[in-house]
C-alpha cells in the first residue's frame, strides 16, 4: 500500500474504488454519502433498463441505478452480496449498484493518466482518467457526466 503514504501532499484526493464485473472504477469520495447492502427495490414504470427502482433510505426515496447497465455493460443480477453506493450527484442523491467496494485510494492529479482516445461516446462521457495502481487499472468515473443536471435539460 505504498501509494497511500506516497501522495499525502497537497492536491491529493481520496477516491473510492469499486468493482463491476472484471473492471475496476473509482469515484471521488466526497460525493459518496454511504455504502449499504442491496435490498430489493421497487421497480418504476416506464424507466430505462438500468433503473433498478427505488429504495427507502431513511424516509427518502432513493433511485437505484445499475451502474453496469448504465455504462453499457451486462445488466447486474443483484444479490445480497451486491453493494449500493449512495452518492450525491448535483442536488440529487442516487444509489449506484455495484458488485463490491474494493479500496480507498489517495492519489494526486499526477497519478491520473488521461483517457486514451477511444471511439465510444459513452466512455468519453463518464471517464475522466485512468489510474494505474499495483498493476491494476482503475477508471475514474465522473458521476456528473453520467447524470447530467436535468434542470438544464428540461
Amino acid at each position, binding site marked *: 500500500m505504498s501509494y497511500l503514504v506516497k501522495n499525502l501532499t497537497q492536491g491529493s484526493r481520496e477516491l473510492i474504488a469499486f468493482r463491476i464485473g472484471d473492471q475496476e472504477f473509482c469515484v471521488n469520495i466526497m460525493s459518496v454519502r454511504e455504502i449499504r447492502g442491496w435490498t430489493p427495490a*421497487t421497480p*418504476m414504470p416506464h424507466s430505462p433498463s438500468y433503473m433498478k427502482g*427505488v*429504495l427507502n433510505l431513511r424516509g427518502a426515496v*432513493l*433511485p437505484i441505478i445499475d451502474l453496469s447497465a*448504465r455504462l453499457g455493460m451486462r445488466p447486474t443480477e443483484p444479490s445480497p452480496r451486491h453493494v449500493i453506493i449512495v452518492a450525491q450527484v448535483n442536488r440529487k442523491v442516487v444509489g449506484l449498484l455495484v458488485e463490491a467496494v474494493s479500496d480507498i485510494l489517495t492519489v494526486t492529479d499526477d497519478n491520473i493518466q488521461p483517457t486514451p482516445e477511444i471511439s465510444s461516446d459513452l466512455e468519453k462521457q463518464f471517464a475522466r482518467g485512468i489510474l494505474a495502481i499495483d498493476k491494476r487499472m482503475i477508471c475514474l468515473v465522473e458521476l456528473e457526466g453520467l447524470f447530467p443536471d436535468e434542470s438544464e435539460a428540461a
Partner: protein
Amino acid sequence: MDMNEIKEIFFQECEEQLAELESGLLKLNDGDRDPETVNAVFRAVHSIKGGAGAFGLDDLVAFAHVFETTLDCVRSNKLEPTQDVLKVMLKSADVLADLTNAARDGGSVDESRSRGLVKELEALAHGEVPAPSAAVEAPAPKAAAPVVAVAPTDPSGFQPIPFSFDDFGGEDEPAAALPTYEVTFKPRAELFSKGNEASLLLRDLSRIGEMSIFCNTDDVPALHKMDPEGSYLHWVISIKTDKGEEGIRQVFEFAEWDCELDIKLQEDGAASAEADSELPMIPVPFDLSLLDAGPAVAEADTSADVAAAAAAADTASNVMQMAGAAARGEKKESAATAAAAAANNAQAANNPSAGQTIRVDLDRVDRLINLVGELVINQAMLSQSVIENDNNGTSSINMGLEELQQLTREIQDSVMAIRAQPVKPVFQRMARTVREIADITGKSVRLVTEGENTEVDKTVIDKLAEPLTHMIRNAVDHGLEMPEKRVALGKNPEGTVKLTAKHRSGRIVIELTDDGAGINREKVRQKAIANDLISADANLTDEEIDNLIFHAGFSTADKVSDLSGRGVGMDVVKRSIQALGGRISISSKPGQGSTFSMSLPLTLAVLDGMVVTVAGQTLVVPLTAIVETLQPEASSIHSFGATQRLISIRNSFCPLVDVGRILNFRAMQANPVEGVALLVESEGGGQRALMVDAIQGQRQVVIKSLEANYTHVPGIAAATILGDGRVALILDVDAVVAASRGQSLKQEMSLASVG
C-alpha cells in the same frame, strides 16, 4: 386567531418581502436588467403596501405607494434604472424596513429622511417622462396620524402610567353602615400560569361589595430585569361588604394556593380615613365591565369623550385614557380601580408570549418526519423479530416493546401534526381582506367559507395566502358590481364571495366564486390587443379570452387603486400556484360571476389510500378517487374494438383500464376476471374501471417526493413507504385515465432517460 396573530404573520411576511426587495435591487444594481427581477421588486413593495393597507398602517402605505409608483416607471421602461436611481431605491427600501419595524415595535422613524426620499422618488417618477397618472395620486405621507396600534411607546411596548388620582379623590366615601375589610392580594407567578387572572378575581370581588383598590407597583423591577411571566404587582383592597371574611375568601377560593391573601377587618370611619392618608389609596370609581369590552369599543368611547379624557388626566397610554374617560363619564357605576386596568395592561403585554411561535425551516421538520417514519418501521421490524425468537409471550421485552410502539405512534402523530394543518387560518385572513376591500370600494360583500378544516401541507398553506389575497382583491374590486348596479340587475345588493376547500383525488382543490359581473370578454380582448398580447384579428374562444387575464401586466381596471389594479394580480397568482405544483383555471359566466379553481398537491399531507397489488408490485390508489370496487364477472366484460374492453356496471358501460399494462409492468393485458376493478372518477370527469390484481387494504400513507432524487414519472403521483420499509408508488389516477383515453403517458427527457 386574533388580530395580533394575523398582524404577526403580516410582519413575518414583510421581512421576507423586504429581503426579496433588497436582493432584487442589488441585482439591478449589478446590472441585471431582467424584467423578472424588476417585477419581483415591484411585487415585494406591492405586497407590503397591500398588507399594510389592511392593517391601517397609513405611514407605511403612503410611503410604499410612492415607492411603488416609481418602480412602476422602471417596470414600464419609462425610467432607466441607473446607479443613481437605484441608490435612491435602496435607501427607500431601508426606510420601508424602518417603517415596518416602527409599525411593529413602536418607536419612530426619521421623518425628514422619509420625506426627503418621497420627494426624490416622486421626482424620479415625474422626471424624464410625462408623469404617470399614478404619481399624481400619490399622497404625501401624513405627518402624524398614528393609529392607536402604533402609538409611540418605548421599544418594549411598556410605558409608565402618569395618572392623577386627584381629580376623583374622595368622591365616594365609604358608607359607614357595613364593615370594611382590608384585603391584601399578592398573586404569585403560578396564579397566572394556571390561567387565573387578577382582574377577573378583582371584578368578582367587586360584586360582593363596594370597594376601592390600590395597586402596589413597588416590586416592579427595571424593564431589562423583568421576567415576562413573573408577578410583580400586588393589590390592597378596601371593601365594604356584608359577606364577611368568609365571603371574601370564597372569591379567591381557587387561587388561594397561588397567592398571598391577607384579610383584615378595619375599624370604620377613622381607620379608613387613616388608611387613606397612610396608603396612597384613593377610591377610584370605575366600571370594570369596560375591561370586558374589546379595545375597539373602549377606543370609541375614548374618542367620543376625548376632551373629557384629556382634562381628566394627561395620559399617553390607551388603557389609561379609557380609565380616565370612564372615570369621568361613569362615576355612578360601582367601584373598581385603575390599578386593575394597569394590571390588565401588564397582562396584555404578557399575552403575546403565551401564543409564541417559532418559524422552523421546513427541511428540518421534514427530516424529523422522515426519521420518525423510519423509527416506526424499525420498531415494527424489531417487534416482529422478537416475536419470532421468543415464544414466551409475557416476557418483559414484549411489554417494553408494546410501550415503545405506543410511544412511537404518538411521536409520529405529533410530528405529522406539525406539517399538516387546516387551511382555516388562511381563510380567516381572507375574511379580513374582504372586509377591508369592501370598505374601501364601498361594496357590500359577504364571504362564505367551506371546508376550512381541510388539511394541507404547511408549505402550501404558507404560500397560499399571497395568491388568495390577490384573487380576493380582484374578485371584490373587479368582480363584484356596486350595490346600486346589483339592485338594478335584480341581484342581492350584497355580493357573495365563496371560498371552498376540498380534497379531490389526492389534491386539494380551492375554489373562489363570486356572483359578480363575470369577465367582460370584450374589454379583456381590447386590453389584450392594446397590450400587444394578441393580434387584433385573433380568433379566440371564450375560454382563451378568459385565460388572457393570467398574462403579466394585464389589468382591466380603468384606474389604479390603492388595493389592486396594477396588473400584478393574476400572473403572480398563476406563477405562485404553479410553483406549488398546482393548476389554476377560470370559468366565468357574464352577469353571473366567475369561479377560480386551484388544484394543489398535498405534498407530504397524509393520504388515505387503497393498497393494491398490480403485477407483483404494491401500489397505492388515492381513496378519494375511488367510487367503488367490484369483482368483475366474465359475463359483464365486453370486448370493444381490437383492444378495448368495457365493463357493464348496472347497465352502463365503463372502459376497463389495465393499470399493469399502462404502467408497463406487464406486456399483456391481464384477465379481468382474475382481478378487482376499482371504479374511479377523474378530475376531468367520467368514470373508468381500473383493473388491479388484488386489494391489500386501506391505510394512511405519507407522501414522499419522487422528484427530490429522481424525476417525475408519468402515471405516478408520488411514493410512500409501507410498514415493511419498502417503497410503494402512489398512482396518479388522472394521468392513468388520460393515458387510457389514448394520450400516451408523456415520456420526459430526464435523469432516467438521458444517454
